[in-house]
């Protein structure tokens, strides 16, 4: 098992290195930061001095070398927009996103498994139809639209919830709701589909012939076998939550890594862009390893193959 993690880490490292290179060059295509950070009426000489001081005038390979050296020491340099070490800023924002993502994903998974299983237990029943329709709607609704409508209804109209920011438990409700909706909708569809085929499988027939209770058949025999594809999809969705919190965080003014990334790009804060991208990449890589381990945990056939 240890060897397996090592192997996966090595593979991911290659991907991360490629990403680092790409981010470095792409971020430099956004333009010259000197025009953003100095007053509009600053002279050419002042801009030159600024670029010189930040090292932007050095040849690209030198900048790149310095960057890689920094990355190796987990030092991305100073975030120009905040005048603090970029890594520090990014690490501060990351837990905010992580909390949102973990809560949203857990809620989506738990509800989707329960709703999807019950829908699959009686296909074409009233419950199944309601669940299928509602989940389809949830999966298809764009999150920015849901977010704006939610603000309109609950904050502007009813005045029940704050429009944005953090501080009270009430601030959590709308971001989590919006983030949960899409994964929930998609996962219900996946759970329902895999559960229907699992419930029609030969081992379920055996369980019925053994006289096993119906609930046990659904939640032990069938569900455990249905979980593998569900986890694959859930892993993908979780990665896009960490990543795609950008929209939701921007709308709700949530101080997470998504909002930070957008701010950094808008302000040509190269160091901060690089730091946020790396952290997100590492988070997704850890997530993938966790999913692989979960796979092995759930399916003995994979476990014994991996040994």
């Amino acid at each position, binding site marked *: 098992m240890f060897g*397996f993690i090592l192997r996966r880490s090595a593979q991911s490292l290659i991907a991360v290195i490629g990403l680092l290179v790409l981010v470095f060059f792409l971020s430099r295509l956004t333009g010259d930061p000197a025009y953003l950070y100095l007053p509009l009426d600053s002279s050419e000489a002042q801009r030159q001095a600024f670029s010189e001081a930040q090292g932007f005038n050095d040849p690209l390979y030198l900048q790149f070398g310095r960057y890689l050296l920094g990355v190796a020491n987990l030092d991305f340099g100073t975030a120009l927009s905040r005048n603090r070490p970029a890594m520090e800023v990014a690490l501060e924002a990351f837990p905010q996103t992580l909390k949102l993502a973990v809560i949203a994903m857990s809620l989506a998974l738990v509800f989707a498994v329960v709703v999807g299983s019950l829908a699959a237990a009686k296909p074409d029943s009233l419950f199944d139809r309601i669940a299928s329709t509602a989940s389809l709607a949830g999966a298809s609704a764009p999150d920015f639209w849901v977010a704006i409508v939610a603000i309109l209804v609950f904050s502007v109209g009813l005045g029940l919830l704050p429009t944005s920011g953090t501080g009270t438990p009430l601030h959590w409700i709308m971001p989590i709701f919006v983030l949960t909706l899409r994964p929930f909708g998609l996962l219900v569809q996946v759970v329902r589909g895999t559960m229907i085929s699992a419930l029609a499988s030969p081992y379920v027939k055996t*369980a019925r*012939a*053994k*006289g096993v209770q119906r609930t046990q058949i659904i939640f032990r025999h069938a569900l455990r076998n249905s979980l593998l594809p569900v986890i694959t999809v859930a892993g993908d969705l979780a990665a896009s939550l960490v990543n795609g919190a950008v929209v939701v965080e921007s709308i709700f003014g949530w101080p997470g890594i998504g909002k930070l990334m957008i701010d950094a790009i808008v302000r040509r804060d190269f160091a901060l862009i690089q730091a946020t991208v790396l952290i997100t990449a590492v988070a997704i890589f850890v997530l993938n390893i966790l999913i692989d381990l979960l796979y092995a945990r759930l399916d*003995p056939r994979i476990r014994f193959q991996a040994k």
Partner: protein
Amino acid sequence: MTAPHLPSAHLLEVKDLTVDFLSLGGAFRATNGVSFHVDAGETLVILGESGSGKSVSASAIMGLIDTPPGEICSGTITYRGKKLDDCGVEERRDLNGRKIAMIFQDPLSHLNPVYTIGWQLAEVFSAHGVATGAEARAKAIDILARVGIPEPEKRIDQYPHQFSGGQRQRIMIGMAIALHPEILIADEPTTALDVSVQAQILDLLKKLQAEDGLAIIMITHDLEVAASMADRVIVMNSGRIVEEGHARAVFENPQHSYTKTLINALPHADDTGGTGRRSTTDVGKPILEVKSLNKYYGLSSGFFAKNTQLHAVKDLSFTVAKGETVGIVGESGSGKSTVARVLLRLNDVSSGEALFHGRDIFKMDTRELLGFRRKVQMVFQDPYSSMNPRMTIFDIVSEPWRIHKDILEKSGWRDRVTELLGLVGLRPEHADRYPHQFSGGQRQRIAIARALACDPELIVCDEAVSALDVSVQVQVIDLLAQLRDRLGLAYIFITHDLPIVRHFADRIIVMKNGGIVEHAKTEEIFRNPQHAYTRQLMNATPRPKWEAASAPLPA
């Protein structure tokens, strides 16, 4: 046989059972007025071919028919005088496993892959509130020992995929008899197993029956299995019972024409006739010479562990002549299918040579190989999965002409397809249908027509009739024999079933663990088998229950 209005005196009685299955095309009547009964300690065999409704009757007893699509239109099932239809859901559930148990055809897919077999055995006790935890585990270990799994304490924590097919069926049987039920329903319990394993499983069932006084309802399409187990037999065809009676009477003196067909289809039914389907033309000079063929499979067992190799085919040599049929017989894992795959270059060879008209197959370049593939065709076990479901029969049969452009002008395709379909006993209008619209036997005919489209010299049949019903098997083999004599074809006929090649093959190669155990003319193999393993293969064919166990080998 029973008084109709009194509470049934039998342990289990099914009366007038009619089950429909609803589909888009309308209702399909799976069983039609089926009645039977079984008493303690006896074995009732329900015999029939696929689609005869024999499994549906058993599923109805277990309450396993899903409604919809199934619908029980009429009939009663009575257990110890109690109508099962009147039972509540919970009462019915508790009967399953405790009083009436069932085992199925394919034990691998019928065991839950993600739980240990210990867990699955213990579940029988916990589901019926008999025992839980350590107590259930101890009982599970006892059961494993009882059904003959070695080292039960160790193996109880393993998963289904870590057992062999025979062991899995033993575990299934163990689960079924765990609570000492009174009735065991066995639905094709040995069909997926090798013959020698089949014999062991049947023996185990007989032993358990003797110990517990079980009533067994055995569902099978295999006449030999039926004869070896049955006290009484009912024969089903198209959802109806066409014949019933005591086993010996039914087998030795069948009344109904369908039963007669079935029994006559048995390969050794015409023992004295001998060479009925063997080649009538003179066997010519060898077209294929295989010399010291070896095939290794690398088994990579881990990242750091060293590779171990499986020697799948060991030093195999044989020849095939024009108009000749060579049977390759062996159990699963004997390497017989690997031989076919290597000869057709579907897998690479490890060493050795195979001369086809003097040219080494393994040294052919791409162009030569294309020509070779035209002359050597293959027919697989499952014709359905080897046909593209979205292609019509015309497309499937004419596909070789798309690849080998020089065989036939496009204008002649339609006529030739019609001709080929006629050759394999199908009608011209079948050309525009799709594979799913045909029965298993018809699909195998289509596969043969496709193989013939290239005007081949040699056809390799890999378990080509194993998935078919007995009566259909005979038809397909007759067809192959006819085609051989008319077209001068040669066959390599690979099978696990020794009797089936008896009247068809000219020579037989018996394989075990990748090597040749015995290689001789068919008659010599059957008259005077030299090797113990060959004798074991022949012996493993179950003997009728009414004959003494010590009866001599079939001559």
